[in-house]
């Protein structure tokens, strides 16, 4: 045996990198992974692959909640169920009337657009999705839904609940998707004030708040105005309810500060609707 012959050196006498050096190397790897994922989106295949592997663990973690929900369903109060049923029947009648009115308006709109020579409006279908969980990531306001690329979901699609817009699909994996809530600091939604037609951009401000900024033309907005999507980004459908103007401050600034409270601000949804453009619906 010669000195320095690593193959012949007993295991306990071999020297490797120190603990601290190895920690720094691992830190470099972690930072590189962060940058590659967050800045350049290079690790989507890795994320997709690992998400399929992690899925059984997520399901195992959710199993007690599923059992609890099942128990709740089996022990539900009959009187409460009857009341809920009556309320749902009333809502069905009201919604049916609104659907007839909407369909008639749609037909008239299509006819007028055809007369004027405009292209037909792209259709949208509603894909129901179940909220699996809120992301516990402290850096984001996201929820995870049980529909992914296997179900025809694509990044950028709008996600709504009963009263209006909730957020946007920002990451799609084969079996699940992540929805960034519209109150996230990085969310920007092109909107229109329904009463005046004023267009602007709605900025997420976190903590359930939105601010109307970047208005084109003259400001024409008042407290109580309804804000809907303008559809100018080609991602969100036109006219989807977003929120209501709750505060307008003219504090000597060039532009007033306009704050909007979203219609869907509960962040406790169980079922949501993904607004899928017709061409993206899975067969």
């Amino acid at each position, binding site marked *: 045996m010669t000195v320095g012959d690593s193959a012949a050196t007993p295991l306990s006498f071999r020297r490797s990198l120190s603990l601290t050096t190895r920690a720094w190397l691992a830190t470099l790897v972690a930072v590189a992974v962060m940058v590659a994922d967050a800045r350049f989106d290079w690790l989507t295949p*890795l994320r997709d692959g690992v998400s399929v592997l*992690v899925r059984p663990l997520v399901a195992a973690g*959710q199993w007690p909640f599923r059992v609890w929900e099942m128990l709740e369903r089996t022990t539900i109060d009959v009187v409460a169920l009857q009341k809920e049923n009556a309320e749902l029947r009333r809502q069905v009648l009201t919604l049916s009337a609104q659907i007839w009115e909407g369909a008639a308006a749609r037909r008239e709109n299509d006819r007028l657009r055809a007369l004027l020579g405009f292209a037909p409006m792209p259709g949208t279908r509603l894909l129901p999705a179940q909220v699996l*969980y809120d992301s516990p990531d402290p850096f984001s306001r996201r929820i995870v839904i049980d529909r992914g690329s296997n179900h025809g979901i694509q990044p950028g699609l709008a996600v709504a609940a009963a009263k209006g817009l909730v957020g946007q699909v920002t990451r799609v994996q084969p079996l699940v998707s992540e929805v960034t809530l519209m109150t996230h600091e990085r969310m920007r939604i092109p909107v229109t004030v329904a009463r005046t037609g004023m267009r602007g951009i709605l900025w997420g401000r976190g903590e359930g708040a939105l601010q109307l900024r970047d208005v084109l033309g003259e400001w024409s907005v008042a407290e109580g105005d309804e804000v809907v999507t303008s559809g100018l980004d080609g991602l969100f459908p036109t006219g989807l309810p977003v929120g209501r103007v709750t505060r307008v401050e003219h504090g000597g600034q060039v532009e007033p500060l306009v704050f909007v409270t979203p219609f869907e601000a509960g962040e406790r949804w169980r079922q949501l609707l993904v607004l899928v453009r017709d061409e993206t619906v899975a067969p």
Partner: protein
Amino acid sequence: MIVTLLAALALDLIPRPWMAVWGPEATLLTLTFWALRAPAWTGFGLTLLVSIALDVGRGAVLGQTALAAIWVVWGAQKWRSRVLWFGPLGQAAHLVWLWAGALALQVAVRWLVVGDGIVAYGYLLAPLWMALLWPLWYAVLLWPQRWRAVMPKHRV
């Protein structure tokens, strides 16, 4: 070890709306335990793998949990002789600073590198809950080893 890490991952992926971000990190607790009790088996490669799986499950940026976990494992291995000299409560008093420092580093690096600020400040309470949970965690993870120690000698 692998079974406990998988169980901790499943625990961390449980939807917990009542403590969405400030709850204890089961994976970090388990990695700390194994870094103290079996440092030769708890390397940075394993730490990276487990942390990335957790990030994928949570929909977080990949690598952010790893950043905290790496330095927790480093600290636990570096000071294991001192930490193990104490009982579980004394260990928790030492480890809480390690967890707090690692999570603070994670927040700082993510802010510097990715540009994301923290939006849920309750997250900063997580080390406190982890310290409170540590004695129970330590006892549960140590239990199979105690059980083996009291097994009859004729059983292998």
